[in-house]
């Protein structure tokens, strides 16, 4: 008898079909299917509730026993049962490497058999024990993302000439040099497609590797499944039919700013939308390594769009950029840059985003202690407990005790906190507005719970205003001190303790930047002067001109000496 854990990604094709074919085998062996708490909500994130219900019925029909486990996610289950040594089987998955990463990071001792397909000759599912891989993942010199074959397959011609891409049956041509409003990024340039503002083209400024091109082509297979995400719609080719970029959906919105996100109206609701999108991406095999800089928010419509998908980790293809989300406070025991990005690391990134819906994370997350765990500010904790008690519970456990809170768990928590806020609001309304028709208000609140939508606040006679302001020193913000601890940093990570005001550069630094800002390579949209200066120093752009300058001066001096003595 096997214990088989039902994964969220098994609700997607072709894993779902493989699972359906395997049910007679499971039924015959008397296997038990374990289902996560909150699986219904996970299915909702990928619009697979019908499939989920159908699957539950299929379990019944095949006489397969099911049980609900007290976990929201694979990582949570592995971590909670890490000492068990029991064999664990998983339903079909679309990517094995994140699972191996999870087994490695949670130190699960038992064998973990991932279902990697269906053997139609043997008419049984194919399982592979990934436990032996976990150990090597942690320690190999060149295994994992470090051991990638980086052989470029093209010779980009630069930002000029004609490029083309195909969507549906139609081929579209764009002349790169004639585009207006070209925006520079870290990997190349982007521009909105002429005559079709719904699309944006990205042209890389470096050669592409084979695995990248294969990954980009695979992305195009799921464009319709994630309509709010900037998934690559097609690969863009140059005049020599070399792949040079991608075309994706063009979204407008405000780039998320974690320091001031909580000041926005509907921040909680937008945070929840971000979480649903990230969960859906995760189930499709997309792990984003730079979320904090790549979410566009529309606060009026409560929408969020995750962008910069092309450089993410997808299925078994690693990310092409290093993780920039290093400010997520992940405990040191879960931090490993060599591995494929795993859901524990992602969950800490999402935790900072969820926190930012209620307060500036800098007011809560301090430096690392000697154990490699982030120290939480006491006042900040109390404030978060007051604002979002369910989320606060997860936050404290995640940072102080290094018990990860999966994205699904965080979604459940934020749902409860929104529900609680609505109930508190209802209680206020009921208490202060006895002359209002309480049945109408009550019904509206109940309806909003059922639909999980945020209710619209009616114009009410309240003794105080509930509307958030842009004033940073709000009355409902707790005044607190950030302790500057003298403890030795085991790992330097945070620069959230910078002042909230933007640092003003000295004049001489500004002058130097002005000279170099003339080239597109130096200029990135949205960067502050301070960030630009830091990058300027880090990338060493000053080195070449400095060397030339010194060289010229030395040459002049030598010539002068020779002239004098001759």
């Amino acid at each position: 008898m096997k214990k088989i854990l039902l994964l969220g990604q098994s609700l997607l094709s072709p894993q779902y079909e493989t699972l359906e074919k395997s049910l007679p085998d499971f039924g015959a062996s008397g296997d038990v299917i374990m289902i996560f708490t909150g699986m219904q909500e996970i299915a909702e994130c990928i619009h697979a509730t019908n499939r989920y219900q159908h699957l539950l019925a299929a379990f019944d029909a095949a006489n397969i026993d099911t049980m609900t486990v007290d976990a929201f996610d694979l990582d949570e289950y592995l971590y909670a049962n890490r000492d068990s040594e029991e064999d664990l089987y998983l339903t079909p998955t679309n990517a094995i490497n994140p699972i191996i990463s999870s087994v490695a990071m949670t130190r699960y001792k038992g064998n973990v058999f991932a279902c990697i397909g269906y053997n139609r000759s043997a008419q049984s599912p194919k399982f592979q024990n990934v436990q032996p891989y976990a150990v090597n993942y942690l320690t190999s010199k060149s295994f994992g993302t470090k051991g990638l074959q980086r052989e470029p397959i093209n010779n980009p011609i630069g930002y000029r000439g004609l490029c083309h891409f195909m969507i549906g049956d139609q081929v579209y041509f764009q002349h790169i040099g004639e585009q207006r409003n070209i925006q520079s990024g870290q990997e190349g340039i982007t521009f909105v497609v002429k005559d079709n503002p719904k699309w944006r083209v990205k042209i890389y400024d470096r050669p592409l590797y084979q695995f990248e091109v294969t990954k980009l082509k695979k992305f195009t297979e799921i464009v319709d499944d994630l309509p709010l995400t900037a998934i690559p719609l097609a690969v863009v080719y140059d005049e020599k039919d070399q792949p040079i970029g991608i075309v994706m959906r063009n979204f407008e919105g405000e780039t998320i700013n974690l320091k001031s996100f909580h000041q926005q109206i509907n921040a909680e609701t937008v945070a929840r939308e971000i979480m649903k999108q990230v969960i859906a991406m995760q189930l499709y095999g997309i792990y984003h390594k730079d979320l904090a800089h790549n979410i566009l928010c529309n606060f009026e419509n409560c929408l969020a769009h995750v962008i910069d998908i092309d450089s993410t980790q997808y299925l078994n293809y690693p990310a092409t950029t290093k993780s920039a989300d290093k400010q997520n406070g992940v405990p040191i025991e879960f931090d490993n840059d060599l591995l494929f990005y795993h859901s524990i690391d992602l969950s800490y990134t999402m935790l900072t985003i969820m926190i930012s819906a209620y307060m500036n994370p800098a007011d809560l997350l301090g430096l690392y202690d000697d154990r490699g765990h982030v120290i939480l500010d006491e006042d900040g904790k109390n404030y978060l407990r007051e604002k979002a008690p369910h989320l606060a519970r997860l936050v404290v456990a995640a940072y102080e005790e290094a018990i990860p809170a999966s994205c699904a768990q965080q979604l459940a928590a934020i749902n409860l906190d929104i529900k609680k806020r609505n109930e508190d609001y209802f209680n206020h309304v009921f208490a202060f507005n006895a002359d209002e028709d309480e049945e109408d208000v009550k019904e509206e609140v109940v309806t909003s719970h059922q639909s999980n939508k945020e209710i619209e606040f009616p114009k009410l006679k309240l003794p105080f205003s509930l509307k958030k302001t842009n004033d940073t020193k709000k009355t409902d913000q707790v005044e607190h001190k950030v302790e500057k601890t003298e403890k030795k940093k085991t790992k330097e990570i945070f620069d959230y303790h910078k002042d909230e005001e933007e640092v003003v550069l000295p004049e001489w630094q500004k002058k130097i930047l002005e000279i170099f800002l003339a080239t597109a390579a130096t200029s990135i949209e949205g960067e502050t002067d301070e960030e630009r200066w830091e990058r300027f120093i880090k990338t060493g752009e000053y080195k070449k001109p400095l060397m030339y300058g010194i060289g010229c001066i030395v040459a002049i001096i030598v010539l002068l000496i020779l002239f004098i003595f001759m």
Partner: protein
Amino acid sequence: MNELSSVEISEQIYRLENMKVGVMTNPRTPLCIILDLSGSMELYKDQIKSIVRQTVNHLKAVGKRYFTLIIIGIYRDRSRVLYFGELRDFDAEAFIGTLPLMCRGHSPLVSAFRKADTYLGEVMKACEVSKQICTIPFFFIVTDAKCTENTERYTGILKTLSEDMAYNRKIIVECVTSDNEDGVDFGGYKILMDQEDSEKTIINCMKALQLASSTDVDATNGPFDQVSRPPKNNRVAYGEYLSHILATNVLFYFNNLTGRDA
């Protein structure tokens, strides 16, 4: 096409058992290739030659590793051992030259599998006797999988292969065709021989195996307590450790280089 007799095979096993092994002796990886040269494989002769050539050339380039090569050919309704010995002594071009001009006969894959299992087992036993460290074997199946035997006979074989894959006892690579809906599914890493880019895929696959086998990519002790490399004098533990690295690396490099999942 030269078929080895049981005496010649026994001699090879004897040599392995009596090999002088010391602490500096490199580990051994057995490698078995089942070549289906039956009538239905006539279209894929070039691919068969390429597979043999690329496998041998890439694995010969792996340093600090012994490979025992076993080639079992299926031809004229019989399975025959065509080579049994050290990979470094094997001349791929000479071997290719001895292959029949035309593929003929049926595909008794079951007997070929049984032979392969038997001989792989004997190689590993010989390593136990000589105390040489031995990893899990590579197992190549080059066939269009259009079996001509009773499919029920395959049930036991497929069950064994399935368990071997699940428990990482073998690394199975099947070089098959895309139109094998009615054929046997062996459950291993797949290379499709009838695609336009099959030559490139074959080369990339062998490159993946070469990288995976290279002892340059073996793991070192890491920062976490439970990870440690066993001492070389613990032959069984070290062999298991190397086998795990081999299986892990194949998984990673196969996907990375061929763009295909397991």
